[in-house]
């Protein structure tokens, strides 16, 4: 609890800076918003009138504070292009992106942990080299390329999974998973390679510790040593990396959602940028960045909770 309070100022400071940076970055994008909305060929008076109405004549700082104030109440504005409330647009599409991200991370973890354990306990052997080699190769394949390969094999050639489209989970769970699998796999492969590499190194390190030798001297079976004695100390850095990699997962999600035509937040962001819908872009970027900071903050807290050395010392 004390730790939470101590870190709170950092959190608030970072979130404030993030919001400011978001506003500035988007605000500095070229193109007069009023012109973009009304289109070219409209009278200058109409443009000025719209600018006044949108409050674009006020100083930047005032506009920022106004925007921030609304954002804190959950009002991220209304898109001048589509007319929807930004927050509504985000929340409507959020489940898709969250499901995609979670599936990707879970698939990656479920595959990475056993592979890393096998790799580490037979470190240096042929099996280890094969597994590490595959992981190394996977790291050289970007998300969109993996997506194309998967589409080619499973959608075009084998026809097992659809190449585009989305059906919400509540409508039909099975169809939902069918649609979500290829996109999630595309994202998962890179994460898999990263997690596996990290965990393997960590495990090899841990397995050389004295307390592992003592566990062996106690007569503990090898699998028990791996899971109970070695995995836990090694998992901390894995947890941290999962949190830090969220940025990569979100970036990948933007591309993957676009490729598979999934109605997620990432696709919304991409298209809003293309259309120069600045209000929408501002809102989405703030939302994503805030979520990222919060999630990493929580991961940081969990780390302290899980590692007894930190827990009792702090």
């Amino acid at each position: 609890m004390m730790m939470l309070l101590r870190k709170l100022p950092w959190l608030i400071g970072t979130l404030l800076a993030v919001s400011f940076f978001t506003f500035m970055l988007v605000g500095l994008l070229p193109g007069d918003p009023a012109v973009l909305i009304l289109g070219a060929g409209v009278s200058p008076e109409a443009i000025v009138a719209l600018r006044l109405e949108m409050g674009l004549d006020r100083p930047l700082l005032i506009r920022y504070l106004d925007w921030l104030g609304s954002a804190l109440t959950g009002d991220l504005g209304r898109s001048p292009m589509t007319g929807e409330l930004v927050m509504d647009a985000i929340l409507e599409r959020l489940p898709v992106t969250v499901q995609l991200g979670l599936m990707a991370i879970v698939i990656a973890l479920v595959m990475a942990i056993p592979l890393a354990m096998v790799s580490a306990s037979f470190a240096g052997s042929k099996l280890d080299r094969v597994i590490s080699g595959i992981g190394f190769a996977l790291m050289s394949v970007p998300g969109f390329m993996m997506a194309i390969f998967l589409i080619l094999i499973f959608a075009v050639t084998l026809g097992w999974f659809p190449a585009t489209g989305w059906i919400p989970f509540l409508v039909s769970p099975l169809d939902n998973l069918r649609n979500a699998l290829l996109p999630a796999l595309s994202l998962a492969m890179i994460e898999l390679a990263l997690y596996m590499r990290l965990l393997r190194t960590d495990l090899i390190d841990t397995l050389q510790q004295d307390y592992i030798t003592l566990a062996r001297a106690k007569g503990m079976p090898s699998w028990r040593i791996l899971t109970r004695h070695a995995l836990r100390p090694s998992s901390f850095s894995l947890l941290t990396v999962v949190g830090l990699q969220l940025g990569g997962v979100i970036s990948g999600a933007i591309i993957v959602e676009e490729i598979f035509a999934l109605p997620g937040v990432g696709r919304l962001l991409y298209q809003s940028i293309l259309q120069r819908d600045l209000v929408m872009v501002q809102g989405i970027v703030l939302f994503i960045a805030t979520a990222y900071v919060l999630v990493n903050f929580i991961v940081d807290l969990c780390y302290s909770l899980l590692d007894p050395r930190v827990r009792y010392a702090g």
Partner: protein
Amino acid sequence: MPAKKAPKIESRAQNFARALQQVFGRGFGPGFWLAVFWLLIVAFCAMFADWLPLRDPVDPVIANRLNGPLSGSLLGADGLGRDIFSRLVHGARVSVVIGLTAVSIGMIVGGALGIIAGYFRGHFERALMAVLDVILAFPWLVLLLALVAFIGQSLFAISVAIGFLWIPAYARVARANTLSVVQREYVLAAKAMGASTSRILVREVLPNVIFPLLAYGLVAMGLVIIVESALAFLGLSVEAPQPTWGGMISEGKRHLATAVHVALIPSITMFLTVLSLNFVGDRLRSHFDVKESNL
């Protein structure tokens, strides 16, 4: 009992020469040299694309549309009839130039910031770390999309935008290495002898920090190529008619069912390039890690 021989003190140049000799003398294995060979081919294509006897990469010849490899031209034609092989070679230029430029920007700017932060500590360091925290709070694609919309889509603009992304990574690595170097005794000794700050930075800190930075460079370049191709895939990299590998893959997606080679060939090329960069970078890094302590 024989007297102990005084240890031979090598100059830094001799040390480096010996390291090079070990790199090229001792075998690195066939895979390593294969990767280096591939990278040299890519670099060659990037440099001499204009002078090679290739078909025009932007000239659409509808008659050749979607021809497979070895039917007419070496690797076939894409959806608009443009020669794939020629586009591949020209596209290498984009990847290599952006790769080198972005990594250089990241290394120089990020490295400098990191070294200064690590050496002088204090407010600057804290401010820098705070700014980096904020920048890193944004998913990289989001940041990049905004930057590209802001700076534009020329070769230079894209390089700068991606380079900007790499500044935090390099700043962190440089700072961490500087922190550890600064604590070592030879820096303290230099200080005690009255060496000026700039002298210490240049003579003691820089040479020791630069090796990890350079080692990271090759791997970083692979990542930059991936990032750039992602942008190109989304249509936000260097604009048409300049061919880019990412753009070619994006176009190829449309023809996956009918002419898979349009997407497959640039994909494989890019994969091999990034893989080679990762491989060579990784090997060099682990090789020089041991040597680092000799400096």
